[in-house]
């Protein structure tokens, strides 16, 4: 999961920077109201949403790992008692 979160973070940066560059380059050529900040905000909001969800899944996996550790301790205690 850590790899997944890192990949998501990396991909967000990877996607946003060239995306912004593409948009700036293509929009500057044409004389039309660009509204670039709205385009940027919409794309950013969507990728940020995906990224936050990936973080949330990572946090849940961390909780699960702690759960497994708890179970392992429980099993060890039982083995010692018996």
């Amino acid at each position, binding site marked *: 999961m850590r790899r997944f979160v890192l990949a998501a973070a990396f991909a967000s940066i990877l996607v946003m920077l060239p995306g912004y560059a593409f*948009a700036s380059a293509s929009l500057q050529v044409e004389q039309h109201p660009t509204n670039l900040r709205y385009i940027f905000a*919409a794309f950013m909001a969507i990728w940020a949403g995906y990224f936050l969800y990936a973080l949330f899944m990572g946090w849940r996996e961390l909780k*699960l790992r702690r759960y497994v550790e708890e179970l392992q301790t429980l099993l060890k205690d039982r083995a010692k008692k018996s």
Partner: protein
Amino acid sequence: MTTKHLEKINSLLLPVCFAGVLLVMYMALGWAPLETTEGHVQRIFYVHVPVSWSAFVAFFVVFVSSILFLIKRSEKWDWLAVSAAELGLLMTTLSLISGIIWGRPTWGVWWVWDPRLTSTLLMWMIYVAYLMVRAYSSEAGRGSRMAAVIGIIGFADVPVVYYSVVWWQNIHPQPLIRPGNLELTGSMALVLLTSTIVFTIFLFYLISRRFLLEKATSELAVMKRTLREEEQDARIAKIKIDRAENK
């Protein structure tokens, strides 16, 4: 399908998703032609429409898996339903946010009580209720059953959201994708189609990851409960033996 199979498919899907996302970004922002009426802000549609479509797909998965859960009482359908509901809610949130951002330069306001926007907000609330019922239910099984009922009844709002722009024609644009008809042509249609495919693949990837997480959490909780019960039984048995020996 076993967990290993699902994990293998996931590992193959991840690079496809990232490559697809890069392709969509390039196509939407750099390759798609300028829309003459709305201008560049129309490019938001290349992510807004696929995200909204993904929400519909996710809620359809919730609907089907909730029915199957109530019929078969198999936990795997419940895991699938909650995974899809969570993703559907995320997609609806992103759809609302991107729509609001698009609305400001196009309509001049952030929000209007248009039938499409209102019914989408209602859909969002239904699935928030779905997740809240599960989270706050004192008994896990009961919460799952109640959520399944909400998942089935709540799906009735999905066609209302889709047809709201047709039934009550208002400020929101008409649907771009209709059965057997695509309103866009040429390269714009190609960008929208590519984006929709990529977002749908991404949705299924995330649902399957969430499903595996839910499965592991549920199985571990059962294991922990069993171990605790066994430990308690052992303690009671020991007390009984001690008492018998004392007598």
